[in-house]
């Protein structure tokens, strides 16, 4: 597989995902993992690692796409994947703005939004499930994921601290 070829594939796959990912990035995660499998871009553990790295840096949550692009085809891959994921939907959003006032209160618009919402919830949960499976290297990994869910639901602690704590626990060798 030549590098040019994978850059083109990155652009095509993420442009398609851009206009299908209702609910934003969290809805896109299962499809990103499926596409990665399909093209054999990386194994599931590597994708879970990149997903984790995306949390460890500042910026929008689209960065997991940039990291996937970088892993597949370097800096150009990162740029193409990010642009593919963002530009088509942003253009659509710009087009919709001009007619938004006419239909924002329309029944059909509210029906579509309400009808898509449960789909986005199912997609986000599926993404969480798939990343959990991919991230855990032992039962301790699953326990850490569960503990994180619990802490996030019960407290207002910044996710950054939890990521740092996870890294420390990992380096201590408890999770391997």
């Amino acid at each position, binding site marked *: 597989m030549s590098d040019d070829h994978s850059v083109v594939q990155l652009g095509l796959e993420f442009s398609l995902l851009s206009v299908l*990912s209702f609910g934003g990035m969290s809805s896109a995660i299962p499809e990103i993992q499926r596409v990665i499998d399909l093209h054999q871009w990386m194994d599931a553990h590597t994708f879970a690692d990149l997903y984790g790295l995306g*949390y460890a*840096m500042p910026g929008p949550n689209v960065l997991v796409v940039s*990291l996937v692009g970088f892993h597949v085809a370097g800096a150009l891959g990162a740029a193409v994947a990010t642009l593919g994921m963002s530009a088509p939907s942003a253009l659509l959003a710009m087009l919709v703005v001009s007619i938004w006032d006419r239909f924002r209160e329309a029944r059909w618009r509210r029906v*579509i939004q309400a009808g898509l919402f*449960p789909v986005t919830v199912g997609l*986000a949960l599926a993404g969480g499930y798939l*990343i959990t499976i991919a991230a855990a290297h032992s039962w301790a990994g699953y326990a*850490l994921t569960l503990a994180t869910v619990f802490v996030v639901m019960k407290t207002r602690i910044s996710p950054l601290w939890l990521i740092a704590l996870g890294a*420390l626990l990992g380096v201590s060798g408890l999770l391997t």
Partner: protein
Amino acid sequence: MMSPVDRIPDSQRPRPSLLKLYWAHFVVGATGFGGSIVWLRHTLVEQYGWLSAEEFNEGLSIAQFMPGPNVFNLMAAVSRHLRGIRGVIVSTVGIMTMPFIFVLILGSLYERYGDLPAVQHAMHGIAPVAAGLMLAFGVKTASSPSLRNPIALVSVLTFIAVAFFRVSLPVALAMMAPLGIAIAWRRIR
């Protein structure tokens, strides 16, 4: 009908230069750990007053209604108030400058040292926490009051199809969106 959103009259709106727009978004991108939208609101509405709160919220509803990453959709949706398409490009490049440099640095480090035991061990801790953050987000949205029976069934079916049967997103949407919309059609007047 609701009244139109409370807009800043164009004669009173501060007109930021493209450079200023770039810089404001650069700072948001460089500091916005854990989601940039909160920081965008603070910067555009409170700090600079380029947008009214209503204009920002309107942009956010459009961004969330449309597919794609919410942050970029949001910047596109408010562009008519902020220097149009040139403003969108400048803002997007601004918000991504630092994060993209981080991608290049951390990505290279991962490619180069990812096989080292210490790095692998750290990732074995970081990835499960990130998975937990994603799962918690899913659980939080699933507890939304608008997700009652029978529409919650659509979430369950979507989850099973995508998580267990690895159905692709286009197919999942083609199966589940009509079902969800049909149920919503009966409920929403």
